[in-house]
C-alpha cells in the first residue's frame, strides 16, 4: 500500500497525453517542441517526461508527430470532448465511441501523405 499524500485536485483534463514507459526512452524530443511546455523532462534520466500542465494542451498532436518511437505517446482527448465522438456502422447498425471498452478492430489505412 503506497503512501497517501496531500495533493491539489488533478487539473481539468487530467492527462492530455499518455506515455508508454515500455516504448518511451525519455529522449525528451516531445518536451523540446511542445508549444505550451505541457511536458517537462523527468528528473530521472531515460524516464518518460512528466505531464506538468495538461490544462495548457492545445491537442495539436505535434508531440506525437515529433516522436521517433511509434506508440510511445498517445494523445488523450478530455472526456468532455471525446464523449461526443460517436459513429455507426452502416452494415450492422452497431454504435462505436472513442474511448469505449471494447472498440472495433483498428482501421490500419494510413493518411494520404
Amino acid at each position, binding site marked *: 500500500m503506497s503512501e497517501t*499524500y496531500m495533493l491539489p485536485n488533478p487539473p481539468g*483534463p487530467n492527462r492530455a497525453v499518455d506515455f508508454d514507459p515500455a516504448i518511451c526512452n525519455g529522449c525528451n524530443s516531445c518536451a523540446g517542441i511542445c508549444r505550451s511546455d505541457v511536458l517537462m523532462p523527468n528528473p530521472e534520466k531515460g524516464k518518460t517526461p512528466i505531464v506538468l500542465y495538461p490544462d*495548457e494542451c*492545445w491537442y495539436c*498532436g*505535434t508531440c506525437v508527430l515529433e516522436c521517433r518511437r511509434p506508440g510511445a505517446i498517445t*494523445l488523450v482527448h478530455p472526456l468532455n470532448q471525446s464523449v461526443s465522438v460517436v459513429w455507426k456502422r452502416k452494415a450492422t447498425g452497431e454504435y*462505436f465511441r472513442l474511448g469505449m471498452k471494447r*472498440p472495433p478492430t483498428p482501421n490500419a489505412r494510413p493518411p*494520404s501523405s
Partner: protein
Amino acid sequence: MSTWHEYLQGGKPVPTWPYPIRYGEERELETDVLVFGGGIAGSHAAISARKAGARVLVVEKEATKWSGNGGAGVDHWLSACTNPCSRVSPEEYTQRVLEDCGGYDCGPLRYVVARESWDALLDCEGMGLRIRDEAGEFTGAEFRDEETGLLFAYDYVNRCELRVWGHNMKPVLHAEMRRLGVEVLDRVMITSLLTEGEGESRRVTGATGLGTRTGEFYIIRAKATILATGLPGRMWNFSTEYRSTFRDPNCTGEGVSAAWRAGAEFSRLEESYPDSGTMAYISYAVGNAHNTWHGCPIVDANGKEVPWVDRDGRELGSLEERFTPAEGQRFMLGDGLRVPPSYENQTKKLAPDLPERILSGEFVLPLYADLSRMPERERRAIFGLMVGNEGRTRVPVYETLTKAGFDPDQDMLQVPIMDPSSYGHSNFWSGVGAPQWRMWGGGGVVVDWDLRTNLPGLYAAGGAIFGAGAHSSAAASGRYAGRRAAEGARGVSLPGADRAQTDREKARVYAPLKPEGRPMGWKDFNAGIGRLMQSYCGQYKSAGGLREGLRMLGELRESEAASLSAANPHELMRAVECLGMLDVGEAVMTASLERRASSDYLNFQRIDFPRMDPPEWRNLRPIKLGPSGPESRDLPFDYFLRPPYAPSLKENYAAHSGLERGEVRR
C-alpha cells in the same frame, strides 16, 4: 506514470524546475531584420529576408519547429490565383474580396496574397513539401489536374484553391531557415518594442524579450522588425480548466500589446465574433460538412439525406454540383478566408432552413456525416488527405479515430445533438456558446504597400495585419514583408538601445516575482479580464458600458495586476501575457468606443448607435496610442489607391514588390 500527480504518488519529491533560472540576467543581440513570432508568417518572412541578403533573427515564444496557429499542419492553400490552372486573376479576386468585406479590409495585403500565394507554395515545394499528387492516388478525380498533379478544392472549375499535404509544413520551413542561416531564438517571448524619437520621426529599433524557461532578459537591436504574431486569444473566453480553443492558446496578443504601446496604428479592433470556447467539439472530429469536410453528405437518423442548395436556394441534383459555381456565378470562395459569404462569392451549402426542418420533424436527430456516399476519391480526399494534413487533425482526428476503429468506407460519423438553431451552418463541431463569448475578429495594424506600419522600421505580416486571415495569407504576406524589411534595413545603421526603456521594461516584466499584497496566479487574473471583456465589450456595446469597462481595466492595472505572482519562468511568461492583455483590452474597448455606428460587416453592435454601416461611418477609423492617450482618425477604405500611391493595384505592386530588380534567390 505520466502526470505530475502520478509522479508524486510514486513517492518522489516535488521536482525542481528543470531549466536554469536566470531572472534578470541580460543578453544583448543585434540583427538586420528581427522577426517577432516564428509561425507561418514569421517563417516565410525570415526565409525571404535572408534570401534578400539580410541577417535575420526570429524570436519565437514556442518552439519554431511546430509553432503557431498554422504549426500543426494545413490542408487548404487559398488565393492561389497565379497557379497554372487558375481561372481567376489576382485583380478580379482582390476586387471581389474587398467588395464582399464591405470595404473594411486591407487592399495591399489581399492583393499581395493573390499575387504571391502560389509562389509561396512553390517555395514550400522547393523545401520538400508535397503539393502535387505525383503518385497518382487521385488520378481521374474531378478535382485533379492531370498535367500538373495539382488538386483543387471548393470550386473545381475556377481552381484557385488547392488541397495540399501540409502536416509537416513547419518542420520543412524550420529546416529551410537552418539551411539559409536564419538565427532562431526559441522560448523567448517579446515583451516590448524599442523605439527612438518622438512623433512622426519615432522609429522601431528592436525589442525586449523574456526567456520562457529561464527568465533571462533579452535586449535585441534591429534595423527593421517584422510583426508576425498570431491573432490574440484568451481575451473574452478563458476557462481555468477545460481548454479547447480553435486558436493556439499561446497567442494572447503580446504583438498587439507591444505595437500598441510603441504607437502603431490599428484598424478593425472593434470587431469580434461569437465563440463557443469550451463548448466546441474536437475540430473536424464529429460529423460536419464544413471546410475540410466540405461537400460531405449529411443524413438524418433514418438515412434521409439533407439537401445541398445553391445561392438561390435551389436544391442540387448531384454531388458534382457541390463543387461547381451556380448558373451565372463567376467563381466561389472557400472557407477560411475571413470573407463573409455574398451572393457573388458563396459556395454551395447545406439547406440553411435545416433548423426549422428538424423542428418540424422532417429530419430526425441525430444526423450523421456519411462519407461512404461519396466516390472513393472524394472520400479519400476528405478523410485521408485533408483530415490527414490539416492543422490539429493528423494525430488528434485521423490517427485517434482510425486506431479506435473508425472506417470512412463503412461508418457514419455522428453530428452532436445540439440546440436545433445550431444546424443552420454545417460547421457542426463549433458547438454553441453564450452570446457574450467572443473571438478576436480582423483587428491588426494598418500597413502601406511595403506592408510597413506607420512606424518606420516596423513591418507586419499575416494575422498581425488588419483584415485577412488563412495560412496561405500568412505565408504570402510574410514572403513579401521579409523582402521589404530587408530592403528597408539596407543602408540603416544599427540603432542603440535606450537604457531608460529597457530598465522600465525590466521592472514591468519581473514585477510578478515580487507581488504586492495578496499574490494572485495568472489564471485567476486571466479569467477576470475575460469577465470584463464579456460584460463591457460583449455582443452589445454602448458608450456607458465601454467607458466603464475601460475604467475597470484601469482598476485592475492598479490593483490586482500588482499582485500577479509567478513561481517559475513559465508562470512569469503567463503573468506577463496577462499584463499585455490589459493593453489589448484597452485598445479593443477604445476602438469600440470610437466607432459610433453599428456594422454588420464587423459583427459590431452599438446599442446607442444602432444604424448598420451608415455611409458616414464607412471608413477604417484607425486608432493608435499617442503621447496623451488614444487618437483616432478617418481613413478611407481605398487609402491604398490614393496619393501618395498609384490608382491601381497592379501599379502599386510593380512599384513596391521589390521584384523589378529580378526574382529573389531561391
